[in-house]
């Protein structure tokens, strides 16, 4: 507990390039960029595969890969290939980490929609893309959002690896702290990352409440 008070009370941690707000923004930057890229890949792919039923092998492979893929190993490999001059060595592993939960959940959400409902939509005269965007997506939205939330939390927690290759982010407090046996820093950095992850989780939960139709979440009482 004292470490925490010392860490957050230390004026050095509030100014200069190593200030907490700066590190927080760096961390947010990596995480947001990785999540947006992953969403741009995972959501359209999940929608397409779920709607057409073609290419579901991609989803299976992606899900298995996600379990097998060592983020740190991938990071080191990419650094060796690309050097550390750019942000890509960090982004690529983070995106690779974030795509599977988004893709798998989007796919499952779309595919899991009651076939009767899909049938009724076509029967009313909706065209294929209308069925997808006007019916399947709104009904599958809770799962799509779940995928995004899982991905976001993982990305935020894992973005600490950026510090390994000399890039910024909250991971710096941990890596640098370990190197100099400065445990205040290690604990403070960990707490910041955990707090950040919780905040992200909360944000997505809130977004889900706002975006998902009450008819789907069945949140309303019968009046």
């Amino acid at each position, binding site marked *: 507990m004292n470490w925490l008070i010392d860490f957050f009370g230390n004026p050095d941690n509030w100014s200069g390039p190593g200030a907490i707000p700066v590190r927080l923004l760096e961390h947010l930057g990596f995480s947001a960029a990785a999540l947006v890229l992953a969403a741009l890949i995972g959501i359209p792919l999940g929608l397409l595969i779920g709607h057409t039923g073609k290419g579901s092998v991609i989803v299976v492979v992606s899900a298995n890969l996600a379990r097998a893929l060592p983020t740190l190993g991938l990071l080191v490999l990419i650094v060796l290939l690309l050097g550390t001059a750019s942000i890509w060595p960090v982004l690529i592993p983070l995106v690779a980490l974030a795509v599977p939960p988004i893709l798998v959940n989007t796919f499952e959400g779309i595919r899991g929609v009651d076939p009767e409902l899909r049938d009724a939509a*076509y*029967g*009313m*005269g*909706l065209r294929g893309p209308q069925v997808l965007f006007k019916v399947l997506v*709104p009904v599958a939205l809770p799962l799509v959002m779940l995928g995004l939330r899982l991905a976001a939390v993982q990305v935020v927690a894992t973005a600490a690896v950026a510090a390994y290759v000399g890039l910024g982010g909250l991971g710096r407090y941990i890596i640098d702290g370990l190197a100099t046996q400065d445990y205040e820093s290690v604990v403070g950095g960990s707490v910041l990352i955990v707090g950040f992850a919780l905040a992200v989780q909360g944000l997505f939960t809130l977004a889900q409440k706002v975006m998902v139709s009450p008819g789907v979440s069945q949140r309303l009482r*019968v009046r």
Partner: protein
Amino acid sequence: MITFDSVTKRYPDGFVAVDDLSLEAETGQITVLVGPSGCGKTTTLRMINRMIDATEGQILLDGSDVRQIDPPTLRRGIGYVIQQAGLFPHRKIVDNVATVPYLLGWEKKKARDRAMELLERVGLDPKMAQRYPFQLSGGQQQRVGVARALAADPPVLLMDEPFSAVDPIVRTSLQEELLRLQAELNKTIVFVTHDIDEAIKLGDKVAVLRVGGKLAQFAAPKTLLSEPADDFVREFLGRDRGIRRLSFVSSSYLKLRTDLTVTSSSAAGPSDDAWLMVVSEDGKPVGWLDRDEPFGTYVHGKDSLRAALDAALLSSSGQAVALDESGRVVGVATRKALDEALSEAADG
């Protein structure tokens, strides 16, 4: 009019679900497709709006081949009601009903006004409009399904076992609602059911299908009951065909006696064997004169001969009390009158 001209549907696995089917569903009438489970009713129905495409033969909608029309365009002009309603869970009831008007590009206000009008038409409280489907009972959802199908005022309505998932009491009221609506709207309706009683109740004409998608008989319900084409149809129709057929014979054939009623004030002495009906000042039936026994009534000319017979069986006297539509006694149908009407009905 919907015309099936030698239509066959063979599924990719080679199974023939509909075999060389030819029939016509008349404009403004309810045509029922009935038969045991798996006999190809759904397949037949869905070939009309091209949810399934026929393998051979032609389906004509007012003379034009449905295969020439782009499916979504075709479907927007055909109301479609399915068993589990298939309402969109994320949309409020009013927007569910307005689905096709929205697709057709109606203004939002106009589409919603139309939806509200239809909700009322199908007997739903306007308060339901702002609810979501999960907040409605099965029967209510089914009504919404019917309203949705009618929203853009299509001339044709396809209904696939729309009432089979609700309990019998709700089903009866939905059936009556449909007949009432149809009397106002005169749609060309193709109605699928596996329930022969529902078929006979709703159909202007009934097509009985046997497994393998072959047409066993296509006739008016009355004809079906009196002249089933073969053993399959006879068995499918079940028991009591004779009695059930009386549902299609009007009670107006009954010759009523008006000398068997008395007003309470002028109660003349009864003859020992005749049962006299006491009628109140305003014409309503009161009871048998000097006999505290039950009596049965029917509405003369409106109810069927079956209802009149039922009324007679409920009366201790064996006589049915005939009422007009406002409930006033118009006479009494004696056993003799019933006997005559029944033998006439039996002769066709």
